């Protein structure tokens, strides 16, 4: 017998949010500071929301702010598709729909307490990681050494520049950055993000290692980490898929048996053994 649910909440019904601030971070990335009109968004680092524009559609976007950020929440949205193109036209005061936050596979904010954390970020992969990074920085005493490795394609695509500068000036964290192609005015490291790994190899052994970047990056980061023979349960990968419904029904985000919108988007590397489609 099927039972009627007493809670009649429509899982597909977006709630309204208002744009508090909208700013381009670089040519393609839009920063949005949002506040829910009703109940504030309840979320943890690694979760995502479905951003909804009436008549246009929905797109999954991972939350860029930490839950310690109490004034609404932040998203960074790349202009790549129908919905995100339209989102880029939003102005402060405009309304949009939000569903979520979604995802049970999230960053290990509790498990990582007392341990070293090494964030490996590629390009826009900085955005989901930032939620966890800022959470850690806001609870700095709870965690061991914190290292942030960031690789960006080129200098002009770097974003959150004020934050990157602040990170580089902090003495209680180590922030190392590189660009794939260095322009003349770039004084820093040149090369893909994996070239930064040997620099911090002494810290790798027992660290929690969250990784996020474009699909192609994971294979290379995992290959680079392989030689240090790290326990796979220490590595966390944020796996982007087509999370259309966000609630484990529509089937588009499935990796083998797993629905990324439900079981992810953050997965322990050790759980991916049975998911050959993951990497």
């Amino acid at each position, binding site marked *: 017998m099927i039972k009627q649910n007493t809670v009649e909440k429509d899982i597909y019904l977006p709630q309204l949010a208002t744009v508090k601030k909208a700013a381009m971070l670089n040519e393609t990335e839009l920063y949005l500071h949002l506040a829910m009109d009703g109940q504030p968004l309840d979320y943890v680092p690694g979760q995502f929301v479905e951003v909804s524009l009436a*008549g*246009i*559609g929905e797109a999954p976007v991972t939350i860029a702010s930490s839950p310690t950020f109490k004034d609404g929440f932040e998203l960074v949205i790349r202009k790549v*598709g*129908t*919905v995100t*193109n*339209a989102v880029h*036209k939003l102005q402060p005061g405009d309304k949009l729909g939000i569903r979520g936050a979604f995802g049970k596979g999230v960053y290990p904010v509790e498990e990582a307490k007392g341990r070293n954390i090494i964030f490996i970020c590629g390009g826009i992969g900085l955005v989901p990681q930032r939620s966890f990074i800022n959470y850690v920085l806001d609870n700095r005493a709870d965690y061991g050494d914190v290292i942030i490795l960031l690789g960006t394609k080129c200098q002009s695509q770097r974003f959150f520049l004020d934050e990157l500068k602040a990170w580089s000036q902090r003495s209680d964290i180590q922030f190392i950055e590189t660009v794939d192609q260095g322009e003349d005015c770039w004084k820093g490291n040149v090369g893909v993000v994996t070239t930064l790994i040997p620099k911090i190899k002494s810290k790798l052994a027992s660290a929690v290692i969250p990784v996020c970047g474009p699909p192609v990056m994971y294979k290379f980061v995992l290959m680079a980490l392989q030689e240090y023979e790290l326990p796979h349960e220490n590595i966390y990968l944020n796996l982007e898929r087509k999370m259309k419904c966000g609630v484990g029904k529509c089937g588009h985000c499935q990796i083998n048996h797993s629905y990324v919108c439900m079981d992810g988007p953050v997965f322990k590397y050790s759980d991916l053994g049975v998911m050959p489609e993951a990497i």
Partner: protein
Amino acid sequence: MSKPRIAIFDFACCEGCQLQIVNLEEELLDLIDAVDVVEWREAMSEQSHEYDIAIIEGSITRPEDEKRIEVIRSRAKILIALGACATIGGVNKLKNNFDLADVKKCVYGKSADMPHLDTALTKALDEVVKVDYKIHGCPIDRKEFTYIVRSLLMGKTPDIPLYPVCVECKAKGNPCLWDEGQVCLGPIIRAGCGARCPSFGFRCFGCRGYVDNPNVNAAKDIIEKYGLTTDVLKSKMLLFGSMQEPTNA
């Protein structure tokens, strides 16, 4: 916000797709409310050189047509190919299978050598100019046309199916026409028509063009299973698929 200016032009075609627009009935008024139609030979006498969106019916079959479409392209921000002649060359492309002099003679007889009857190989619009959007079909589907126009006016990319006609045909609960002995092109032709022909018992003729990645091997395979020859299949594919890679495969 000023309304987008739309111009509708035709090249080699039967004007049937434009007729579908005229036949929108009530929705035509909605369309005309939402946009500013500045040129449309089939429906009005005004002309204009200033437009945001050019909607083009027909294929390019004469050298002078190439020049004309290039001028239109240079004036339009968005260029939309309307119907099979524009998107894939349509039935007009059948002539590319023959010697052009023979074609002319066959069609025009004694007048074949008149200069205004000059002809060239048929081209789809995107063989000559950049096409931003394609509205498939012979004729176009009115519902799809209005959906695409509304989407573009909202600044959104319309979802045009990547998948074949079978998807819509099965969703409609149609029995398979192959089981009734018809050589239906549904499995390799782009959906979006709502499986219109098969829903009325006619095989898919392929007017919306091939899906991006048609499995022609599979088509040959089933042809054998149904006791037909690949020539039969090819002859069906030629109507809308002349001089296209999957047809020749």
